[in-house]
């Protein structure tokens, strides 16, 4: 049942990714990849048998909206996801630092590929730089904010639960 919730969250992040002008972006040049954050977290914590097909379909949806060759995002998401699935056995996935490392690597890989395939020849250097370097940084900062928010929320919930139990 919980997988319905994950699917719903994936759906929301897809919606946020394909909206134009992008909702999470700085001047439409530096884009925050919510879908990559989700891909990293799903690959770290959820079953690969759910994550791989889910992001295969998500990649097709993104390709349909971005008019990139159909299958390009699927292939990229699958590769990144599989790399994280392999790596998660060797890292402490509960630690914030490792999560950040995984997300930043995933975002960087995604943006570098995107820049070299679609932007390097046609777009000016400034735009390519924003896409390749600043977007992953922005994604990491975004995840940090979300992480802090979730931590505060969880602590608040824990305290509220403790207060309820004390009498």
């Amino acid at each position, binding site marked *: 049942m919980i997988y319905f919730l994950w699917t719903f969250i994936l759906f929301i992040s897809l919606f946020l990714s394909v909206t134009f002008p992008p909702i999470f972006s700085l001047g439409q040049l530096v884009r925050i990849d919510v879908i990559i954050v989700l891909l990293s977290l799903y690959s770290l914590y959820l079953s690969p048998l759910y994550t791989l097909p889910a992001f295969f379909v998500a990649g097709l949806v993104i390709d349909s909206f971005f008019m990139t060759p159909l*299958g390009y995002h699927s292939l990229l998401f*699958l590769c990144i996801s599989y790399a994280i699935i392999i790596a998660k056995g060797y890292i402490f996935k509960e630690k914030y630092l490792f999560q950040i490392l995984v997300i930043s690597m995933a975002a960087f890989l995604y943006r570098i590929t995107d820049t070299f395939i679609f932007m390097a020849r046609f777009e000016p250097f400034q735009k390519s730089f924003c896409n390749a370097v600043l977007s992953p940084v922005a994604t990491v900062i975004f995840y940090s904010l979300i992480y802090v928010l979730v931590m505060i929320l969880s602590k608040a919930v824990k305290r509220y639960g403790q207060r309820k139990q004390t009498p």
Partner: protein
Amino acid sequence: MTNNRVTNFFIALIFISSLILIFNENLDYSSARKFFRSPIRPFLNIVDFIAEVNGRKMSEENLTLYLAEEMLQNQMLESLLYENHLLRSMLEFRETASYAAIPAEIIGGNQSDESKLVINKGTLSGVKEGMAVFFIKGIVGKTIECFEDYSIVETHSNINFKLGVCDRERKNFMIAYFYSKSVLKVESIQYDVRLNEGDTLFTSGFGNIYPPWLPVGIIFEAVKSDDGEMFYLLSCLENLSSLRFVFASEKKIEELPALFSENKKDSVGSVGWYRMYRRER
């Protein structure tokens, strides 16, 4: 760490996505793209709707500003459209005119009584003193002073303006003088001339300035003076206040009407001071 099942599943998915990617060039994926877009599309439509509604909620001040900008843009478009029509008609006129006309733009003039205009063509462009200046609807005036890159035009609203006019049938020839702003007084009318209000008068072609058949104006009043002499008041066709372009044209000698050309008779001989001619049959 990953089990074989996951690896196989991953390889299968990679294979499928690679196949899809490879056949991008050969297969038409438009319906597939449409299908994949369909679950998200309604939400995007909602976002668009919200953005549109927010856009409508403009403050009155912004709305006024927006309206003013739109009106300005409309006016600019209208003026461009008018200019386009004007230039087209100028081009047509120039192509159909039998005489060489030099197009010029009005760059100045006497604003108050419109008695003089300044055009942006001078001697370098071939404009000379004493050239007829007219536009599509009719006569404007004549050049009185020419410099290298501009010329001064004496208009029909100038007190010194005078030209020979005739009716459409070229039966009655008269002289038009300045009367008031954009109004000419037609005099030297013979006793049997009967012209009605609304008749158009044209240039007669007499003299060395104005070519024949250029429209001058429309008769709007026939006046009888105190001494019993008739004259017509002629409203000029070209409105000088809204005029932007003009043509300047030099009259050719062969345009002189045959009515006044001299038929030289061949002499067959002379006796002393007396010259004999062949009798016409």
